């Protein structure tokens, strides 16, 4: 199976103390690929590079086997992927207008049903007309997720989507991610520092540590037969955060 996204010979530094180095990484169509690792490891940087939001200083990013950069990726291809960040980053408008944003910029006029469906999925239909500044943290994050899912993306990037949320919101969000992946075949790149979440959702897991991918494996192998001692240490909680 050809990878949907592939990184090749990536190097990206911030100052002297941080460098992301990824010789090769492939994301396969239809999988949920989790990236775990301590904070500061470079997970968000990796996501921005994969979503063509940041141009790596060295190396190439392939989408469907062709290399593009943040500046030359055609808008039609850009619109097949979408990211949800740790902060909901909502617009100062109603829930409905937030969820419809991506459709509006695409010039799509008849997204009414899709928006309704996305709001149902995140269980927020009753708040459609609310301004977002009245939402709780969990509700805001679900709006952010609905705003991405309504676009029916080929690839969904999630950067710690459930950090700081209570268990019931976490459960709702994980359910939605699983459903999008299973029902629509959405490829998901899930960044999380919660290894249990990776274990619940992912097909494959990678450990990012200090800018480098230490180990990539199927979820069972990753959790039961880690190859690298640092993976074992991370799983047992011995890696310092």
């Amino acid at each position, binding site marked *: 199976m050809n990878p949907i996204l592939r990184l090749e010979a990536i190097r990206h530094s911030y100052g002297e103390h941080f460098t992301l180095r990824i010789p090769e990484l492939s994301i396969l169509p239809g999988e949920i690929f989790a990236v775990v690792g301590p904070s500061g490891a470079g997970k968000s940087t990796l996501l*921005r590079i994969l*979503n063509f*939001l940041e141009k790596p200083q060295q190396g190439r990013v392939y989408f469907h086997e062709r290399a593009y950069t943040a500046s030359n990726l055609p*808008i039609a291809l*850009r*619109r097949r*992927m*979408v*990211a949800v*960040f740790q*902060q909901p*980053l909502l*617009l*100062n*408008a*109603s829930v*409905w*207008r937030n969820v419809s*944003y*991506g459709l509006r*910029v*695409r010039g799509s006029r008849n997204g009414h049903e899709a928006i309704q469906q996305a709001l149902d999925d995140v269980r927020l239909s009753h708040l459609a*007309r609310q*301004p*977002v*500044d009245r939402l709780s943290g969990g509700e805001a994050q679900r709006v952010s997720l609905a*705003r*991405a899912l309504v*676009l029916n993306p080929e690839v969904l*990037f999630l950067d710690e989507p459930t950090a700081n949320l209570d268990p019931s919101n976490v459960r709702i969000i994980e359910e939605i991610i699983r459903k999008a992946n299973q029902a629509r075949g959405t490829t998901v790149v899930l960044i999380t520092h919660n290894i249990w979440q990776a274990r619940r959702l992912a097909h494959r897991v990678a450990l990012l540590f200090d800018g480098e991918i230490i180990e990539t494996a199927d979820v069972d192998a990753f959790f039961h037969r880690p190859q690298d001692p640092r993976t074992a240490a991370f799983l047992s909680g011995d890696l310092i955060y």
Partner: protein
Amino acid sequence: MEIFLNGLRQALALIFSLDPNLLEIVRLSLEVSGLALVISAAMGLPAGLFLGLKHFRGKRFIVALVYTGMGLPPVVVGLTIYLLLSRQGPLGNLGWLFTPRAMIVTQSILALPLIVGFTMTSIAAIPSDLIMQLRSLGATRRQVVFTLLYEARTGVFAALVAGFGAIISEVGSVLIVGGNIEHKTRVLTTAIVLETRKGNFSLAMALGIILLAITFTANWLLLHLQGRLDPRHQ
């Protein structure tokens, strides 16, 4: 007190008699300041966006200039433009001195830093990650810019209100470059100065009241527009 009451009475009488002289003055005031606002907004909104979004060497210097410009004395601007437009000045052959065009120029200059400054501050307050989020949601660069302006709309409206309020009520620059010529460059503020000098205090007060009423109406309209953009009313 009596002057004030007389002024109020006279203002009402003037308004309801639709005095053609008054209408002419009001119309010119609105045209000059309205056009100046449009011109300064057309330049100031993009400039404010740019300064609010970009980081570059020397930005602090430019921001300091903008802030200084927010307190530009109108007479100084008027004098400078007067010298540029006077017959011996470098732009003398335009023939703009003592015409509404010269007044539009000075008022545009006075409003510009206000619009740049307010726009810049409100755009800079938007979390920078939002830009990334909008790109990821599929917005083109142009769409991102419009979304940011919309997101900063409270500040952008404040910019327009502050700009309009400053120029419709200023007298120093229009007096110098316009000359307060009857039927040609007389606006509300210069008319007030003239009537005061002539000792027609209640007429001057009446004009002042009309000026305030216009500013109030303009602000009220802008606020109304802003209210319609508020998520609570969608």
